[in-house]
């Protein structure tokens, strides 16, 4: 679906974890036209003094009710402004934006990896995959038990595995440490979270072919012509797809504010070529 400006109405707003909010908006145009991995650019109010929109992943989208949700942490004035909204208030959203996760049609087992608020980035892929009859394991990392996303908010079909930095629940350590256990099982992996976590996953994914001996999917013809950075094919064939973040101005590709460096040496717009990239497309060591 092409992007549009959509006038949405807040129908529910809840603080589901300390400083983390789940908000539901009536937005039929977005609930049915968007795909997992895409995001909205939401406008703050006219009398708020804020001049930029704020990007949020489409956390869930329910075409039946016309409702989409966003899940965010309050970190500054913008997110704080959103927490003041009350049911009935309207928010104008630009969306759906960016390129979605691309699941290879052959993939049966999907590994989702979320760090903290990265949950919002992969959450809707869980719904989408289950609707398509795929198996989903979701690895989730947080600082502590109090920050753990409630399993009640996930579809029952999802296998939910938790890691906490302090070990207060689940595996004690980084969520990335859980990945080796699922690497062999997974046909593809999809991750969202802090940049260092994604970079670590990219390193793991790189050594995967060697470690496992086979790549279940991916470039069958060996070192054939690499897919163009930013292409749908590049993502669909990738074992690991990551959802990236960058500060954004326009969110439509016009301002060049949101780039990350691509392995082809050309800056890639997170809002347009991304936010989902194949791990191989991102120049992790570039310092950008």
């Amino acid at each position: 679906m092409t992007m549009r400006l959509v006038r949405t109405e807040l129908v529910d707003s809840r603080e589901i974890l300390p400083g983390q909010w789940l908000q539901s908006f009536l937005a039929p145009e977005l609930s049915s036209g968007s795909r997992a991995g895409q995001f909205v650019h939401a406008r703050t109010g006219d009398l708020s003094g804020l001049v930029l929109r704020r990007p949020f992943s489409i956390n869930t989208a329910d075409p039946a009710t016309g409702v989409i949700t966003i899940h965010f942490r309050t970190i500054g004035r913008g997110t704080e402004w959103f927490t003041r909204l009350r049911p009935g208030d309207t928010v104008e959203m630009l969306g759906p934006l960016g390129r979605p996760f691309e699941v290879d049609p052959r993939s049966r087992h999907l590994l989702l990896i979320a760090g903290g608020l990265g949950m919002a980035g992969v959450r809707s892929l869980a719904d989408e995959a289950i609707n398509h009859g795929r198996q989903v394991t979701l690895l989730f990392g947080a600082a502590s038990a109090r920050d753990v996303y409630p399993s009640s908010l996930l579809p029952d079909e999802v296998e939910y595995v938790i890691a906490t930095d302090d070990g207060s629940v689940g595996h004690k350590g980084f969520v990335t440490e859980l990945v080796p256990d699922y690497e062999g099982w997974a046909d593809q992996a999809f991750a969202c979270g802090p940049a260092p976590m994604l970079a670590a996953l990219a390193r793991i994914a790189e050594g995967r072919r060697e470690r496992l001996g086979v790549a279940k999917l991916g470039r069958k013809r060996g070192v054939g012509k690499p897919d163009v950075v930013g292409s749908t094919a590049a993502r669909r064939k990738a074992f690991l797809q990551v959802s990236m973040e960058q500060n954004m101005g326009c969110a439509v590709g016009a301002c060049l504010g949101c780039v990350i460096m691509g392995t082809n040496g050309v800056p890639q717009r997170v809002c347009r070529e991304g936010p989902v990239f194949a791990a191989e497309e991102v120049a992790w060591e570039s310092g950008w």
Partner: protein
Amino acid sequence: MSPADLSVDLGRGLVLPNPILVASGTFGYGIEYGDVVEVDRLGGICCKGTTLQPRIGNITPRVTETPGGMLNSIGLQNPGVDAVVAKYAGTWAGWKTPVIVNVAGESVEDYVEVVQRLEGVSGVAGIELNISCPNVGRGGLQFAIDAGAAGEVTAAVRRATDLPLLVKLSPNVGDVRPIARAIADAGADALTAINTLSGIALAPSRRKPLLGNIYGGLSGPAIKPVALRIVYEVSQVVDIPVVAIGGVTELADVLDFLAVGAVAVQVGTAIFADPTLPVRLVDELTDECERRGIASYAELVGTALPPKPGAPSSKGVEYRP
């Protein structure tokens, strides 16, 4: 009554259908906003700054919000003039809205060379010189902060092209008027004002500046009083048209800039919050003219200017006798 005449003549044949343009760097090459914006209803489009060679721009982060504004340090990322012409000029040629190519360079020769490659290209309606760039030839000093350098680059480009030539002023100067005069004298067809103010923001760690490039340009409503002041000052010292930019978010801002002598207005940062704003401003300006019963929006231009040149603001700013 037929709708008021909104057309603007910027000189050398560049006639805009209306005085609402979109500012360089905030509207890409005109295509990015897709169906969300009715591009054909804009008065003009200034495309992203274009250089001779491709540039990958500055390291990220490149943008952040500030109170009532934003900082950007894109660093002129662009594919180079030849690629810009190859990729976009064909599309532009099919539009009713004139596209003005914003041009940047590091030496007089750079500017001249870029402009020569734009000369005669169908779809390119004019040039806007972004002179807020370091002048490599003069040891890194910006063209924009020195009347001599500003006049020199303008004159060189003027000799190289018959395209309508706009030159964009920087607010990061003590007194903008001598610079504006030098540019006008060197043959520019119009001035645009203002570019961004130099500012910084810090990373949350406070161990370094937030923007990869350290410094960024401040834009948005926060800078409007400064932009209004500069347009007010410049309109009084040059005879060529002035196009205003800086913090426009609503019709009242457009009317303010017209009142201090601008013949047209560019919308920049506000597009990010409200992409349909520029087109809506065209409608609102039409309505405003009708409400006032005036046949041309030109009657709104210059109403707040003094009869003769006012006292210069740099003589005392707010603290003068």
